[in-house]
Structure formats: C-alpha cells, structure tokens
C-alpha cells in the first residue's frame, strides 16, 4: 500500500512537471536575462532601462551561473528569457537547449542575440526553431553598405529600412521613421519549409556571410544577398514568440545613440536600432499584437433565440467580441478582415465579419446539408497572435411538418388521396347496407 502511495505521488509529480505551462499575456513580466558577462548590463543599459520602464521584472544572470534554472517544482519561474550570451557553449545550472525548447513549448518567449561566435547550446535551440547561424568567426560583410566608423573589414554594416518587414506590430515605427540600422554580427538562414518564421530584417543584396579574415572565399558563403537574415522571428503554434538577432551589438548603447554614415549615402544623426529593438521586444514579449475573443453568441435572426440545434436553411446571426492588447490594456480590435467559417469537415460558408467597435457580427443562412457543424474563426495575420475558436452546433434536416405545404402542383395527389378516402367511406355504407332484394320484391 505504501509503495502504491509513493508511486502515486511520484506519478503526480511527474505529471505536474510535464504539464506545467505558462499562460503568458501582456501582464506577464517576469524576465530572465542571460549575459556572457555582467559588463553587458552597462554596455546595453539603455535597452534594459527601456524594458524596466515597461514594467518588466528583470533578473540578470551570467549564462554560466551554476544556480541557473527556469523551472522549479514544475513551475516556470519566468515568462520571458533574453539570451545575450552568444559565446556561451553551455549554460550553467539546470538549463540547456532542451529546457529552453520546452519553455517555448509551454508558451514562454525568448529573444536570442548572436555574435561572431555562437555557442552550441544556442545553435541547438535555434535549429529547433528552424534558424541556422553561420559558422563561428563569420560575419555579415557588405563591401557596398558599411558604416564609415567600420574598422576596415566592412563588417559594421548599414541595413536599410527598406529591407524591413512591413508589419507595424512587429517593427513599430522603425519602418516609418526610415532610419538605417547598424549591425555587426553573424548572418542567419531560415528553414524555407517552416511557415512560422518571419524575416524581419535582411541584409542588402550585395552582402554575404563569411569569415572576413579570409582573402578569398574558399567555399560558397553561408548566406548571400537578401537571403542573409539579420533578424528573424518565430511565432509558434501556441503563440509563443522567439526572436533571433544576429548581432548582440545591435542592442548596445553605442549603436542606439550612434549616428550612421553609410559609405555611399546620406548621414543620419541617429540609427533606427533603438526603435526597432524596443518594438521588437514589445512584440516578442506579448506587449503588442495579442488578440483574444470572448462572448461568442449565435442565434436565429427571426426571434433572436438560440435553439438547441439549427435546421437547414435557418437564417442565423453570429456574434463575437475581439480585443487587442494595446499599451497594457485590452482595447476593442479594429480589424475588418476577420472571417467566419461554418465547417462540416470542409467549410460550407466563409464570410467576413463586420466590425462595430470590436463587436464582430456575421449573418448567413445555414446550408441545406445537415450534420455536426462548427463556427470556426481562424484568424492568422502577420504580427497578431493566432486566434482559433470553434463552437460546435448541430444542424437538423426539416421535420416532416416543416416542408412546404399546399403546393399547387401537388393538388392532384392531395385530391386523389382524399377522394379515395371519401370513396372508401361511402363505399363502406354501400357494401354493408345495400340490399338487392328490393327490386326482386317489385318483380314478384
């Protein structure tokens, strides 16, 4: 019995360890920052100050800290993790690529920055997300777009805002401000089969990623042209967000405040790094682009009642409230491209929902096919969290009394039936009571 009890407790603990998941939304602010050395806190202090001003509860740890752990007793201790530790080969404590991947599976958000050396643990985690960093010692080189304060190897490149993803949710005002970005670091390539990855910033078409010390390229570079990814993000199917930036310096105070003087273009007094870094972090850590749906109602258009089931060809109304997380508050969502599907294996109806201040509504007629149907909203747009909602209803065929009555062309059938019945009724009198002997009497 005691053994059974211990087994049961063990099973319970095991289950709780593996089932723990995070419910991350805009109010989750526990952030772990892993650093190669604590000096990064100072060289990147403007970035961290911006995060602190946004209310993040930041814990700084060096990546080789032996007390490192993100999960304790099956509960995650943080909602977000920043890994500014590119050269770390192995994390200290109880953290490795697997645990980081599980953290993402549980809904946690991660931001990873690379450099000219990228440690194995980060490579492993990146490859789980479909991102491959170029080999160690390589850097993104662009002999045509470099900053004049470059050290001579053309690795301090100027990334143009025209190569930035046009999604205001992810990049904020960075695209509109049209300021160039300073970047010094390694290039990435993404798995073309992975539909969840978004290329946020790519290098120009004259760039490549290779070891800048090599006098000639001995093999095809890790990435070439616009396929050189500088910043890439992933929104997993559970809406966890992971960001990869090839340059740790991208977030540094120096790059935030530095003027940009491209070798071939016009000088700008400020780089766009700060705008982009902060907007990207906001997005990654669910401060923006998060949707929720609530108050789903569906009812008959005729009497506004919700029946237990619908009948084919009913006119129905579907209602749902959409909210978007903006600046720490849930606000009504303004999108007008939300679609409702009425699905029985395949969608039978797909219609746009009209938006009145976050209240989305669709009216349609139930198709003339009966079965188990679902109202499905599958809203998947760049920058927004994926919102899927399904509500099941059954659709019945018409009751026999509900078919159309008194069809003119069916009158012959009705009349023939009733005349037959009348005939049978009358005939019953004749058969029972008719006497043929009366005329006989007359004859007698």
């Amino acid at each position, binding site marked *: 019995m005691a053994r059974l009890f211990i087994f049961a407790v063990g099973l319970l603990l095991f289950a709780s360890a593996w089932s723990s998941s995070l419910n991350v939304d805009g109010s989750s602010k526990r952030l772990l920052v892993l650093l190669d*050395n*604590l*000096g990064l806190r*100072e*060289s990147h*202090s*403007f970035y961290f*100050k911006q995060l602190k001003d946004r209310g993040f509860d930041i814990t700084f740890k060096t990546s080789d800290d032996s007390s490192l752990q993100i999960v304790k007793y099956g509960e995650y201790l943080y909602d977000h993790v920043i890994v500014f530790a590119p050269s770390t080969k192995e994390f200290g404590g109880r953290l490795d690529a697997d645990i980081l991947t599980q953290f993402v599976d549980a809904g946690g958000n991660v931001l990873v920055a690379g450099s000219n050396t990228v440690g194995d643990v980060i490579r492993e985690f990146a490859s789980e997300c479909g991102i491959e960093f170029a080999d160690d010692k390589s850097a993104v*080189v662009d002999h*045509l777009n470099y900053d004049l304060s*470059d*050290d*001579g*190897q*053309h*690795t301090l490149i100027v990334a143009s805002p025209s190569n930035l993803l046009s999604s205001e949710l992810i990049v904020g005002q960075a695209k509109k401000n049209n300021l160039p970005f300073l970047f010094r670091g390694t290039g990435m390539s993404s798995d*073309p089969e992975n*539909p969840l990855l978004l290329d946020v910033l790519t290098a120009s*078409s*004259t760039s490549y990623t290779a070891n*800048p*010390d*090599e*006098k*000639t*390229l001995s093999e*095809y570079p890790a990435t*070439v*042209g*616009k396929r050189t990814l500088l910043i890439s993000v992933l929104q997993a199917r559970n809406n966890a967000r992971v960001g990869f930036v090839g340059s740790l*310096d991208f977030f*540094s*105070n120096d790059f935030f405040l530095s003027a940009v003087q491209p070798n071939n273009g016009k000088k700008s007094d400020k780089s766009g790094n700060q705008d982009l870094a902060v907007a990207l972090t906001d997005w990654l850590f669910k401060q923006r682009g998060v949707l929720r749906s609530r108050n789903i109602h569906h009812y008959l258009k005729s009497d506004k009642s919700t029946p237990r089931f619908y009948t084919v*060809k009913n006119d129905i109304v579907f209602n749902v409230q959409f909210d978007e997380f903006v600046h720490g508050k849930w606000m009504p969502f303004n999108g007008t491209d939300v*679609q409702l*599907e009425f699905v029985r294996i395949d*969608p039978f109806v*797909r*219609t746009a929902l009209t938006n009145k201040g976050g209240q989305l509504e669709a009216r349609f*007629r139930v198709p*003339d096919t009966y079965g188990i149907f679902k109202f499905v909203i599958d809203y*998947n747009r760049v920058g927004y969290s994926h919102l899927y909602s399904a509500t099941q209803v059954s659709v019945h065929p018409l009751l*026999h009394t509900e078919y159309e*009555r008194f*069809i*003119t062309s069916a*009158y*012959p*059938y009705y*009349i023939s039936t*009733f*005349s037959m019945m009348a*005939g049978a009724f*009358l005939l*019953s*009198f004749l058969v*029972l*009571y008719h*006497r043929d002997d*009366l005329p006989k009497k007359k004859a007698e």
Partner: protein
Amino acid sequence: MIIFIILPIFSWSVVAANLNVANLNGLKAQFQTAIKSFSDIASLHYTLAGIKELGVQLPDSYCDNINKLVDKLNVESIYHATEASKTLVNCKLPVEDYRATLTAVLQSEDSKTAELYFAVRSSVILGITVDESKIEKRLNLLAKTDDSVVSQGYALLTGAQLSQTIAKSYADTINDLVQQADEIDGSILQYEGGIGATALIFNAFYEVAEKAGVPVKIDSKQLIKFATYFSSKRHVATLRSAYYLTKIFKHLSDNKNQVPVVVSRISPSAISPQNPSVLVSVTNILGQPVGEMSVVAESAKRKEDGVVVISKQKLISKASDFSVYELPFYDTKIPRGFYTIHLTLTARNEGKLIGLTDNMIDVKVTSEGTIENVELTVSDRDNTAQAKTYKLSYPNGQTDKLELDYHQKLTIKFQIKDKQSDEFVRVQQAFLRFTNKKSNKEIIYLAEPSDGANSQYKVEVDLITNANDFRHQSDTYELVLILGDSLLQTAYEWKLNNNVQLTFHEESLADKNHQKLYLPRPEIIHQFREDEKRPHNVVSLVFSALTALPLLVLLILWLKIGFNLSGLPLGLSPLGFHISHAAVFALMFFYWKCLNMFQTMRYLALVCIPLFLFGHRVLATLAARRAKKV
C-alpha cells in the same frame, strides 16, 4: 606568436580595449536633457554637479527646487541637497532643519558607511562641527563588519572630509583597494558592481589623496587599465554614473595627477591615394593637448605575415598645440593590407604623463581596382553553333536584350587589376547575381579565379545544370556583377544587362511563399439546391379537377343505378362504427397536416378500439340477420 598576429583587428568584445577620448558631448547632452525635469533630489544633485564640472554655471533659481525636493528626515536626501546647493553661487540651506537628522545618524550605532559619509559630508558643507575621532573609530568598526569595496570607497570619501592626518592614513590604503579590482581581458580594471561602484571608488582615491596632500598611489599600468575602462563607457544609463565619470575624467586630465595620454587615429582607417597619411591625435582623456612631443613610429607591421614596412619614423606635428601628428604612409612600396603601427611618444616636458609607449594604431592600405578584360559569352552546351562573345567595359552594360535558352550557357570572364601595382589581384567577393525582375528573387553565383598570377575570374551558368537554382522559372532577369574587398577602395555593383531572358526546358516551380497563410481566404457562398421545376398552375388545377372526377362519376353512377341503405340496422353500433371509421381518415388528414408519426399511432390505437368493437357488432348483427333470413 602567429596567432597573436592574425587576431582580428576589430574587437568583438563589448569592452573596447583601447584608451579613447571621453565622450564629453554625450555626457553633456545627458545632463542637459535631465535638467529639463527633475523627479528627485538625487538626480538634481548629479545633474547640477555634473554640468558644473563641465563648465556650465547654473542660475540660483534651482535653489527652490532643492528646498522643494529635500526630505529633512532622510540623511541621503540631505546629502544630495547640500551637495546640490554647493554647486550654486548663492544658495543657503537652513542648517537647523537638518541638524537633528544628521546628529542622529552620526551618533547612531547602526548607521552604515554610506550613511555616515552622507552625514559627515553634509555636516561639513553646512558648517556643523563633527567629532572626528569618534567617526574614525566608528569607521574602523564598520570596516570589520562590512568589507565590501563600495563600503571601503565610502570610508575613503568620509576620510577625505576629516583632518589631513586621518585622510593620510586612508590614502595609504588606496593600494590595497586597487588590488581588489577585477582584471578583464588583461586590458581593463573594474570593481564588482560595474560602473557605479568603480566610478565611486576611483573618485574616492582622488578625493582622499587631495585632502591628504599626497599623490594617488596607483601603478601607471593599473591606472591606464582603469582609464581604459572608464573611456570605454561611451554612454551610461544613470545620472549618478555620468556625474562620477565626469569627475573622473577631470581628475585623469588634471596635471597635478598622473595624466594618461590618449593616442588615437583621427583619419579614416583606409589609406589610399586620396588619404595618404595617418593622422594621430595626442591628447589627455578630455581631448585637450598635452604639450610638445616627439612621436615616433617604431614599426608598422602587416598583420597577415608580420612584414615590417616602416621603422623608426618620426611623425610630423600638424597643429600648433601639438595635438595632431601626421605619418605619411601611402607609398607605392607599401602593399595593400592591414597594418599595425607601433607608436612611442617622448614628451619634451614629461611631467606626469603616462601611457607614452606601446600605443598601437590599426590602419589598412587600400588600392583602386579596375575591372579589365570582361567577356560575356553565350555558347551552346554541345558547341555546335558559334559562341557569341561580347566585350564589356565598366561602367557600361549591355543595352540589348540577351536571350538564352536551355541549349545554351552563359560564361563571364574578367580580371581585376590593382591600379597602383599593375598586378591582377583576387578579391573577397566576386558574385554574379541574377534578379528575377518580377519576383525580385536573387540567384547568386561565385566567380572563381584561376590559379597563377593573372587571376582570371570565370563564372559559368548552364541553363540545364543550374536550372534548379532558378526553379525553372523562365522569365526576365537582371544580371549584375558584384566585386568587393575590404582592401579595395571602392566596391563595384555593375549592371551588365538589365534584360536577360532565360528559357528553361521544364515547367517553372512556384516559389515557396508562406505569406498566403496570413492572408484572408476567399469567401465561400453556399450554393443551395435549386427548387425543382413545377408545372404551371393551370395544368395542376386541370389535373386536380380530373382527379376529383372519379368520385363524382361514382356518385352519379350510383344514383343512376340506384342504391339503398335498407340493410342499415338501427342502433348505436353502426353510428359508432362509421364515426370511428371517419375518425381514422380524419386522423390521416391530421397526420399529413400537423401530427407526427408517434402521435398518429397513439391516436390511431385509441380510435381502433371503438372501430373494432363497433365494427364487430355491426358485422355480427348483419350476419345474424342474414342467417335468420336463410
């Protein structure tokens, strides 16, 4: 040794390893932004004091802000208030308001080193006398319980407020504290706790030494490492750090102390015919000149192989204040490459200047390249037809449309000549880029140089073997040659032809595009089954009439042949039978009209009972009558 030489010249580590001129403009800008709005007394103190250090005297109107923000019960707040008031010309604080708080802290047995310092410093500024021997005892006691470096720093600062003899005893401990600093990468020194702690402690060295009237006893190498650390902090987040940094930069450039000399290159790193010499600035950490020097380039070594190209060459002074020196470097004899110049300085009036030797400056010698002998050849794969060769010269591209099909291949050959040395050279980047003009997709090929001295580059694109790169998309492409090298003065992006029509053998494959996952899907409007076609109403009515006819005919015929109901027995049973019989038919009507099957069955069952009983009685009566008759 070789490893050291090939180390990349750019520093990947976050901490720059070179001593640089301080970013004073950045600090000034930070204070000027902060001065626009104050939230607390501490930032007011640091801003006013910091900006004063930078030579701006602020008006006394800030005195009101001090009085407004100060908390009379908090010793730290009082400290900031007194320090802030000291920066203004005429700002007297009410001494008596603070006396109680300060005395309490000075008397207390629980106050920490920091609080003790705040109280002592405030008292000194306000002119309240303090019991020096008591404080010294208290500091010694605290040193035993709290041995953190910050606490020791505060102890030094407190010592600097006391008498010269006490200050002197503290100044002697500076060296112990220096030994506790952490060394990083062998080039910088800092204390645990980062810039805040390091700046506070380093500043304390100077304050206590000044009071004691002795020089700061730090080894010049260690001093340089501290200075390197502070100068690498180009931007700091807090006003406190900004203030202490400003003070430190002033101390480090004060001629009373050891002054580290900052040697930095002010010309671009690339040496070219347009920019033939290296300009070196020799200043203190604030960027001010430090007097006449003789600057000698001990050597200039090529990083790659350690070849020495310059040795013992004196630099020419270019400015009257001896802050800029020039080294003519560009010379046809110096081949292109990355070089490290080793500079040694000898001051006419050495004084307290340190860091005069072992100054390294990185430069690169670039050259101008020209693209020569460019040939674009379109040939058949099986060499049946005559190959067509076009000669091109930069920067002109082909204007005519170029058509290629899957029988053909495109070959481009070129050479790059170093204009200065007249040699053919190799470059890091030699790409041939096709850009699909519709989708903007890029396909890039590497041109490979031939072995030997002529370095002929060649790139070949075969429309059969390379078709997969293009995903067989027959389309119009732009053809661009990209040449770049860090040692080339300019890189080239040369549009060879804007209109290349490629035709592939196979069907084109669509690009993989996940974007459509994020787009609204096409609307689906359900197609309802169409109603069956119905005959015209007239037809229906005619046929309705026709179906009613048989009953009519029956009745007429019955009337004609005559019928009787003479066998109708009197009694209840015939009546009951016919009523229930009619009821069954009526039930059928209602079944059609409104009832469902189960209701109908139930009613039918009910009606059937009288129907059966009455029917049986009627038939029995009729049968009995018939039997009687027979």
